């Protein structure tokens, strides 16, 4: 293990005998909320991406506008692992308030790039130190004092690029893209990058083992956050009415949707083919969505837990009166206000059964940004086909963080606008009963307000109704409608996105999970294999009601671990309601709910404990030693 001070200025000429760590480490940038570090972090992320190296970025931020600590973690992974990693090997310490804790959190042999005045050497001596006078450098290149706070961030981008050997030309082209329409801003920022780059080159020789080297793994790929992908999905599904109330972490779903609508849905005459309304609260937002859905528009809202609670009554109306609408729920932690800027998967049960009475909902569960796009679109088809509100359950990790993805494909399937009768249909039919199951699919035909036919109108109500939409309190009529709704929900099992079988048939142990847990689970499967020699099968659930394949998966395994990000094992609970008793006993739970994104180590450790693996399998010790050696030689 390395000992002594590795600060390069003082150890010039010392030969580095440590093994290089290439494209397989994390960078943690510790700054202050409101300091404008976001665009610098984004440039850094895109620079690594530009080097062709698989990368992901996570913003760990407080519920605050300015002044509180915030961390941005960038993970470079040659193997394509994009989940959160517990430890970051490279620290960029800008925030004095957390500098000590940040420095102490570094693994032995890590890297500290920091504002010189923070003097991190006082806390430990077993990491590589790169003290940089960011403020001084910034002052020299940025005459305008009020811009310095922002420009300073670009200086650390330059310093990091130099230390990790990221090509300056890649940083430059990323920056040029970011400030495409503002050449002066580009010049100023790139000047700052170069100043940081040059300062490090001049003062230090590299003493740490971490390198970014060119790969070819990102060609054609995009970087996007899940919220923007959801918004894009909605627009390419023809969303027309958007009603919303701002709430973290869902706000950017609507912001993205609105931006794209403004770009592509204004006629040559300057008229809008869409309407976006910021409602007075979430009650009104969902009310508007249902009003618009009833009158024939593809409508959506986006919210998070507290908004979901407020939408409960209307969700029941939508279910019972059978009105389409799409609700994006980007989950954050609860209960109540919880930690608004931390991620979780704790809304599943409340969304599945949102509202009083016998209410249940179709819930889509995207597991990556591509599915945010696809399900963001499919939700509208399903809502109109099934004539019911459809929820898309994302989370803060998926929604607000940057993910790499294949480019999204243009949808070729025509929009499915569901069963709607026109005036001509009514001429032919002579009339209709709104809630009658005439086709055996448990879905009635509807008409839209304004249909010019004397028999077109019907009375929409949340009160007891018969199949002709007439008010009823008759037991038989009530039950008839309720049972049809139940059949409709059963049929939805076949219409919603089928589960994804990631791996099957190689093990008697399985994992079930949904959403953003996917990234950590895929990595954990490799870790479990590597550390314990155990194969694990894995199926990712992509919608509720559950498809039959999920039953088969449980049936064909001895034990099935349900991995999820909440305290109460909500997915497991929902599965227990659905599975036969002999399958229920096979379920085990792996839970993670501290507000941080799920990581592979947690899954691996929990799995090992529950499987009774003590220590590391002897056949794999060699690998692990080699791995540790890379860090601590």
């Amino acid at each position, binding site marked *: 293990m390395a000992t002594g001070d590795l600060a390069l200025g003082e150890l010039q000429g010392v030969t580095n005998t440590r093994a290089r760590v290439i494209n397989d480490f994390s960078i943690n940038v510790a700054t202050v909320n409101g300091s404008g570090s976001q665009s610098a972090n984004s440039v850094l992320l895109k620079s690594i991406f530009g080097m*062709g190296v698989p990368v992901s970025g996570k913003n760990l931020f407080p519920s605050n506008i300015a002044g509180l600590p915030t961390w941005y973690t960038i993970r470079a992974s040659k193997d394509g692992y994009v989940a959160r990693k517990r430890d970051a090997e490279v620290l960029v310490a800008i925030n004095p308030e957390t500098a000590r804790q940040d420095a102490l959190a570094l693994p032995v042999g890590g890297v500290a790039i920091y504002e010189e005045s923070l003097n991190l050497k006082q806390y430990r001596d077993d990491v590589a130190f790169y003290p940089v006078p960011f403020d001084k450098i910034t002052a020299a290149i940025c005459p305008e004092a009020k811009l310095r706070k922002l420009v300073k961030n670009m200086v650390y981008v330059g310093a990091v690029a130099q230390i990790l050997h990221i090509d300056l030309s890649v940083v430059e082209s*990323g920056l040029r893209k970011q400030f495409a329409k503002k050449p002066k801003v580009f010049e100023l920022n790139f000047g700052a990058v170069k100043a940081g780059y040059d300062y490090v080159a001049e003062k230090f020789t590299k003493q740490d083992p971490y390198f970014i080297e060119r790969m070819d793994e990102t*060609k*054609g*790929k*995009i970087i996007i956050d899940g919220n923007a992908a959801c918004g*894009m999905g909605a627009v*390419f*599904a*023809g969303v*027309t*009415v958007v*009603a919303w109330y701002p709430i973290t972490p869902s706000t950017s779903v609507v912001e993205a949707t609105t931006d*794209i609508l403004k*770009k*592509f*849905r204004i*006629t040559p*005459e*300057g*008229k*809008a*083919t*869409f*309407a976006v*309304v910021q*409602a*007075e*609260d979430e*009650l*009104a937002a969902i*009310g*508007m*969505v*249902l*009003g*618009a*859905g*009833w*009158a*024939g*528009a*593809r*409508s959506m809202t986006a919210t998070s837990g507290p908004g979901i609670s407020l939408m409960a*009554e*209307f969700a029941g109306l939508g279910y019972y009166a059978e009105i389409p609408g799409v609700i994006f729920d980007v989950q954050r932690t609860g209960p109540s206000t919880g930690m608004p800027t931390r991620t979780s998967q704790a809304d599943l049960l409340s969304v599945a059964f949102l509202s009083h009475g016998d209410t249940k909902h179709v819930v889509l569960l995207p597991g990556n940004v591509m599915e945010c796009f696809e399900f963001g679109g499919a939700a509208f088809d399903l809502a109109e086909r099934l004539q019911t509100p459809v929820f898309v359950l994302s989370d803060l990790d998926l929604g607000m963080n940057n993910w790499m993805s294949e*480019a*999204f494909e*243009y*949808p070729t399937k025509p*929009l499915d606008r569901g069963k709607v009768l026109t005036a001509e249909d009514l001429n032919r039919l002579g009339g209709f009963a709104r809630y009658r199951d005439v086709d055996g699919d448990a879905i009635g035909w509807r008409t*839209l*307000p*304004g249909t*010019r036919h*004397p028999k*077109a*109108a019907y*009375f929409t109500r*949340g009160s007891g109704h018969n199949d002709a939409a007439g008010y009823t309190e008759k037991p038989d009529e009530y039950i008839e409608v309720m049972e049809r709704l139940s059949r409709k929900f059963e049929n939805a099992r076949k219409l919603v996105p089928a589960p994804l079988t990631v791996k099957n048939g190689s093990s008697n142990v399985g994992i079930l999970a949904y959403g953003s847990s996917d990234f950590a689970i895929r990595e954990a499967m490799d870790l479990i294999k590597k550390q314990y020699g155990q194969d694990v099968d894995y199926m990712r659930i992509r919608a509720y009601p559950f498809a039959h394949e999920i039953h088969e998966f449980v049936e064909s395994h001895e034990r099935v671990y349900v991995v999820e990000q909440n305290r109460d094992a909500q997915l497991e609970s929902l599965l227990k309601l659905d599975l036969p008793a002999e399958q229920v006993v096979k379920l085990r739970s792996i839970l993670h709910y501290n507000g941080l994104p799920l990581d592979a180590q947690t899954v691996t450790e929990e799995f090992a404990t529950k499987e009774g693996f003590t220590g590391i399998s002897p056949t794999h010790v060699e690998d692990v030693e080699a791995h540790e050696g890379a860090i601590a030689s």
Partner: protein
Amino acid sequence: MATTPAAPKVNHIGLPVLEYRGGKTTLCAGCGHNAISERIIDAMYQMGVEPERVMKMSGIGCSSKSPAYFMARSHSFNSVHGRMPSVSTGAIMANHTMTMLGVSGDGDTASIGMGQFVHLLRRNLPMIYIIEDNGVYGLTKGQFSATADLGSKLKTGVINDLPAIDTCALAIQLGATFVGRSFSGDKKQLLAMLKAAIAHKGTVMLDVISPCVTFNDHEGSTKSYKFMQDNDEPINEVDFVASFDEIEVDYGSGEVFEVEMHDGSNLRLHKLHEDYDPTNKANAVRTLMEAHSNNEILTGVFYIDTKKPTFTDLLNLVDEPLGQLPQSVTRPPKSALDGLMASLQQ
């Protein structure tokens, strides 16, 4: 004074009044709400509104049941308690070519629905918003609502010790563009106001005192038939001349405030209060507040503004209803997605 012509067998779009009727009412005999339903039928019939082009909205309560009792040929949405405004807002966004008429109650509007009501007013949503105002909750057997007057008495003897919310003053202040109060027992005034309401573009807020014969029609109530007969104080005599009416009438200048409506019809307000100007917001609110302190129930058209842009004007929508736009309009072309993808690539 102007009169509309005697109702012919069919109206000017060729429909008999029967085509404007609804289901049989289930409200109490003598309920003011039934009279209001009748006036809505008359007004829609006389104005020749195509029933299929009307959306009937409501919340929850006795009043909100009433859309089932008129205009069966119109699409209707009986939503949840206090939330008619948001559903209406959504519906009008999806199809802004429709005439929208909503029926709410005093509880549905001024208590549980206040949050959405004020924002509907603020947006000047193009709809006719009728409050069937009886000061009590009927379906739950007679509790006071927030429009019950200070000092009014329940059947049980309980006295209301909180001031009434004046929905008209609120509506004027917050941005509705046609605000009035009427009484379910005043056929002529209510009919004229409803017809003008149909011609108006923007939020029409009509507070119609509509006595609850079961729970609030007794001595000591300020929302009873008797109390209204004794205390109804019209601020103007409302006269409406539709664009297709041919009757010319004489009136002395200076006595009539004439408003030209969007569709070319005329609203004539014969002044009963000295120099009352229904386009002066501040004065309208002051007049209402003064009337409260004098224990007068003012009725008539308090405020009108035919110029203010409506909610859908501000949205700058295409002419076609948004809900009926084809995929070729609503799904952007492949080139749009390709461009977006290119901007996200390295």
